[in-house]
């Protein structure tokens, strides 16, 4: 069995700061990590490999330094890694990204037939959840998003049964492989990388593909040129027109501050007080 897991290298958003005056992103010193949602996809792929054997190939599009993210995945137990990296990919939106990644999956499939493509649910920097479905559509793969459990995989009959998170419940879906699965978060726990794997990963020669190697057929469909969406502006939030009524425990006791705020909100919003009293009466 051959599984391809698509990942993205992202800035650790928990550590991003916005410059208080210029309102620009301060990227300096922010560490780059494997998109955390993608690790649930990788772990699920590794579990399938443990059970059925086969090979897990990692795929990432990004700048040359995204090699580190792929090496990290090798240390967890992935077998091979491809970094699709070319200046002409810069500025890609989700449509252009899925075009490039789909082309690369096709190339990987020429080496060995691909049975399942995994992606994370979404990335933590873009949060769009669009690239997984995009790759599936471009490759004509069955699409299974927000998968919480792989209930059954029958390689002989080439079928897979999964549980998919839906609004208000879980769908049980059965489909054919090859398919593309976007894995829900919190569904498994990433294994630890043993030391020998880490050494192997550090030395692992990640394959770097430019647009020709990735099999890009139409250069008008990649990068900024291939992106229908245009970012017209980036800005910081604006404060509310009327300022908050401020009180400080430096000027009054917490008790007085509490009395004051309770009196104010209930005077301004009498229905709110009625609602709370009604709840308290139950």
């Amino acid at each position, binding site marked *: 069995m051959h599984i391809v897991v698509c990942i993205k290298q992202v*800035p650790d958003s928990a550590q*991003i700061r916005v410059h208080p005056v210029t309102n620009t*992103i301060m990227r300096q010193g922010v560490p780059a990590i494997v998109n955390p949602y993608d690790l649930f996809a990788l772990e699920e792929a590794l579990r399938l490999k443990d059970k059925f054997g086969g090979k897990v190939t990692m795929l990432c599009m990004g700048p040359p330094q995204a090699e580190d993210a792929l090496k990290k995945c090798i240390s967890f137990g992935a077998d091979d890694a491809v970094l699709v990296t070319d200046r002409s990919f810069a*500025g890609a939106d989700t*449509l252009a990204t*899925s075009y490039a990644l789909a082309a690369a999956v096709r190339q990987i499939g020429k080496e060995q037939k691909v049975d399942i493509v995994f992606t994370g649910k979404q990335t*933590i920097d*873009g*949060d*769009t959840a*669009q690239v997984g*479905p995009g790759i*599936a*559509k471009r490759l004509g793969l*069955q*699409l299974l998003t927000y998968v919480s459990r792989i209930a059954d995989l029958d390689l002989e009959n080439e079928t897979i*049964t999964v549980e998919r998170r*839906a609004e*208000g*419940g*879980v*769908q*049980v*879906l059965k*489909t*054919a492989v090859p398919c593309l699965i976007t894995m829900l978060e919190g569904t498994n726990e990433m294994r630890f990388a043993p030391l020998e794997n880490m050494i192997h990963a550090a030395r692992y020669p990640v394959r770097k593909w430019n647009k020709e190697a990735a099999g890009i057929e139409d250069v008008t469909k990649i990068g*900024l*040129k291939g992106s*229908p*969406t*245009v*970012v*017209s*502006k*980036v*800005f*910081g*939030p604006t*404060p*509310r027109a009327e300022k*908050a*009524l*401020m*009180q*400080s*425990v430096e000027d009054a006791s*917490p*008790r007085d*501050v*509490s*009395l004051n*705020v*309770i009196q104010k909100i209930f005077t301004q*919003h009498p229905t*709110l007080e009625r*609602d*709370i*009293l009604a*709840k*308290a009466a139950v």
Partner: protein
Amino acid sequence: MSEAEPKKPAARGGRNLELPEHLKAYKGVWVFIEHDRGEAHSVSWELLGEGRKLADTLGVSLSGVIMGGPDEPLDAIAKEAYSFGAEACYIIRDPVLKGYRNEPFTKGMTDLVNKYQPEIVLLGATTMGRDLAGSVATTLATGLTADCTELRIDPATRALAATRPTFGGSLLCTIMTLAYRPQMATVRPRVMRMPDADTTRTGTIIEDSLGMIETDIVTKLLDFIADENSNKVNLAYADIIVSGGKGLKNPDNFKLIWDLAKVLGAEVGATRPVVQSGWVDAERQVGQTGKTVRPKLYIAAGISGAIQHRVGMEGADVIIAINTDPNAPIFDFAHHGIVGNAMQVLPVLTDTFREHIAMRSRKAA
């Protein structure tokens, strides 16, 4: 938030930003009406409310798209859609459309768009809407903006200016699809205000067919296991929410949030860092990657007010914020600010609320 700039973005990297002639025929605003087991998802009505404003600005019509099985109440859902502002509903009734599956829904939506050519298509950012939107936008090769917090028409280009948080929720960006149609966007539940229903409004049904049979579809829906309501946190629809952030320092102090919530009959919410630290379950996360809430009262303790959190709760009627830092961004959009240590203020606030409720209840009795 602030006005979209009334100028065209400059063409970069040799890409065309002018709408080609053949796409100028695309007219009208569409909302995908999501429904499951006989009931429409309220995000569809919230989107009709926004869609109505966009359609009025453009001087075009607003329509709903409803797909489902022949035994599902699609006409009743259409009627409801009219009451929320739709003038027409495109309906595809087919046995294979009972229960959401990507393949037939993508085909249905894509075919309708190609045939009737709307300029804007809006979907709820639910597990169904996101699955469908990503597939339809790829098939149509057009632009899709996810999880928008504001939708407007750019006066210069008449294009949809869709604003969403970016960079992990630390800034906002406005995104437009200028040279492609339709312009697609998803919006999360509760982000937009629920419009008022007017049941006197009527509309037209336009029936279409899918042209697909069950044997064409590879993926089979074997079962639907409904969530048990008992252990479901209904944060999105809670009237009162008490939320805590990392300013509470440790999980023990977070109990103060639960104490106040209990007195107010409120739900407990939290910021992303709190959830990531495992102090509370992920289903209690308020913000861009958690739930969007619109309570009557939102009490934020030890929360700085990063955009990622703000977009999830600024629709609250009343926001009380408690923070030690008088310059914390949360005070930019709270209605009442208390500068002080949440660990010190919360117990007193809880007691004062309890006494107030007891006193008022006695008076009422």
